[in-house]
């Protein structure tokens, strides 16, 4: 990658990856400590994808995320404390405690939400790309839709790719291929390579090393420029790996779908190790800079966790709030047992 123009980019991407890694490690700890309820799907191992891709976006671009979405939000600059408060289910959270990990969103940053249903964000991104092109043609913005290798087998993704292709929409389909749909290996679940699906819709396909933020940035910059130039949708496969289970509790299940050796082998390519080593070696980041970034992130996370803990729960009487944009009708929506809570 060309680092002459943007000398701070390698450091920014390191900072993003480090923030995601440490955020997710804290989330694991807090889920296991029952401070965070429900299910969290950590992004640990895949940080280079979010960091590289989001570094190539501009402010007017939008994205739809997945159930494994924390990394995308952090890389887009979402407020760390408001994210943590959301995971704690607090009223100060990004979604006021109504969304949690799987629906976390920040529309002020063009983040159309994590999504609990595999590939469901794809048609939403396509529609948003079309509408934004109609409404703000001068912005020349793109829409990114993230999904995993599991998402490639959802019909709605195929439909969405076709719609984006026939209407030449500026959509970047980003497949984060971490090789496993929960426990099922992609090579067992698709007869053809992932990119072949997209090319059959008439879309250019680019593959990037998803363990290398520089490679992801370069590939993403290319496909994003193509989409901005009006060349229609683009497909970017980032080959990556998750170092931990599909979700936090998987660690306790003792599953056998992949071996410890395989995980150890992939951990040798851990971008949190290889990237800082590389950019230090190339003189793009000093050890002191790295230490400072790491220390800043620890402070940021400590503050976020404390903020979340101290934040108020939503009011018990507010369970119906936001269910509808307009709900000014008697007895609507209905309570489960007479009256409203």
């Amino acid at each position, binding site marked *: 990658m060309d680092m002459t123009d943007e000398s701070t980019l390698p450091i920014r991407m390191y900072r993003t990856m480090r923030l995601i890694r440490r955020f997710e490690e804290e989330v694991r700890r807090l889920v296991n400590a029952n401070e965070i309820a429900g299910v969290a799907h950590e992004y640990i191992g895949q940080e280079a994808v979010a960091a590289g891709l989001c570094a190539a976006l501009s402010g007017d671009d939008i994205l739809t995320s997945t159930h494994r979405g924390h990394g995308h939000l952090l890389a887009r600059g979402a407020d760390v404390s408001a994210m943590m408060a959301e995971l704690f289910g607090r009223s100060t959270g990004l979604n006021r405690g109504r969304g949690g990990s799987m629906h976390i969103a920040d*529309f002020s940053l063009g983040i159309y939400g994590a999504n609990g249903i595999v590939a469901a964000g794809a048609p939403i991104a396509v529609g948003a790309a079309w509408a934004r092109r109609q409404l703000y043609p001068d912005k020349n913005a793109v829409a990114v839709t993230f999904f995993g290798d599991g998402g490639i087998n959802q019909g709605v993704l195929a439909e969405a790719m076709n719609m984006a292709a026939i209407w030449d929409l500026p959509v970047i389909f980003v497949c984060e291929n971490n090789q496993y749909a929960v426990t099922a290996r992609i090579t067992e679940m698709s007869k053809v390579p992932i990119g072949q699906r997209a090319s059959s819709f008439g879309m250019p396909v680019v593959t990037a090393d998803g363990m290398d933020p520089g490679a992801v940035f370069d590939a993403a910059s290319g496909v994003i420029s193509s989409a901005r130039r009006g060349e229609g949708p683009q497909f970017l496969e980032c080959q990556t790996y998750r170092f931990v289970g599909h979700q936090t509790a998987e660690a306790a299940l003792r599953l056998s779908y992949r071996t410890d050796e395989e995980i150890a082998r992939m951990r040798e390519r851990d971008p949190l190790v290889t990237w800082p080593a590389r950019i230090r070696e190339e003189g793009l980041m000093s050890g002191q800079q790295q230490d400072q970034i790491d220390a800043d992130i620890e402070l940021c996370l400590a503050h976020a966790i404390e903020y979340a803990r101290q934040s108020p729960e939503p009011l018990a009487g507010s369970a119906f709030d936001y269910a509808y944009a307009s709900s000014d009708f008697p007895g609507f929506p209905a309570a489960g047992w007479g009256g409203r809570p």
Partner: protein
Amino acid sequence: MTRMRYLEALRQGLHDEMERDDGVFVIGEDVRQGLRGVSRGLLEAFGPDRVIDSPISEAAFTGFATGAALAGMRPVVEFQVPSLMYIAFEQIVNQAQKFSLMTGGQVKVPVTYLFPGSGARRGLAGQHSDHPYSFLVHAGVKTVVPTTAEDAYGLIISAIRDNDPVALFSPAAVQAQRGEVGDDRAPVALGTARIHRRGEDITVVAVGHLVAEALRAAEDLDKEHISVEVFDPRSLLPFDRAALVASVMRTGRLLVCDDSYRTAGFGAEVAAFAADECFAALRAPVRRVSRADVPVPFSVLLEEQIVPSHQCIIEAVRDLVGAGGPSRD
């Protein structure tokens, strides 16, 4: 007053909203040609950016509309056949409908889903004869079923202007009927019922084309000195609870006519609500006239055994009024 067909009223309402608001556009299958009648002529009036033919991809075009709505537009999605909703169910009830709450009110999703040609149409058989509004009501989607041309006009306008997803079912059996549409072109508010006929002995709640069947039944029953009040919810969710309570409190009897599957259908909800709220006033059990719990067979003779008719309504009313004794001296 202007006399027009129900389908023309729907089309006029859609046209008027597209004229009023640049953010309104139509997407669906064969909508440029106006195959189902609702969008006919709109391509010529508004151009291909606002009347969009989608590939046959119901789930994706429903999600597309959600994305466009989130980005600030006001999509109208036409389903060529109501049962195509099943393919898009996830995108309607799990995405569009939940976005407002899940995001803590960051966004609204002002989408209208149009389901023309709803219900059995003699010989369309198993997969094209459903009236699937109960599914959406159950999932919390605002749902309207206009029965007259005037309500078709007024409700499509309200559906489009509403800031939440709203489904509009247009029953096949009434689409060709003519009616008066007021020249003020007024919207009909969601959550407001219409009483088509006042009566003393029994309230008959009827949904969609069964309103016409209930009115026919009421005419016949009048000759037997049974006075039937015909109550059309128009808006199934939100439902005009106060109007129903007032009606049943007066008549003391309730029959609910709903051409969707009987078990856990919309009629069951109205019956349960009335049992809760009107128990003291009821002089007879609440009864339902509904579709049977089986798919519609192809044979027209068998179809008629499955879907309710005005004769079923007459028999049910006679039974109920007999059960409670005459209310009038």
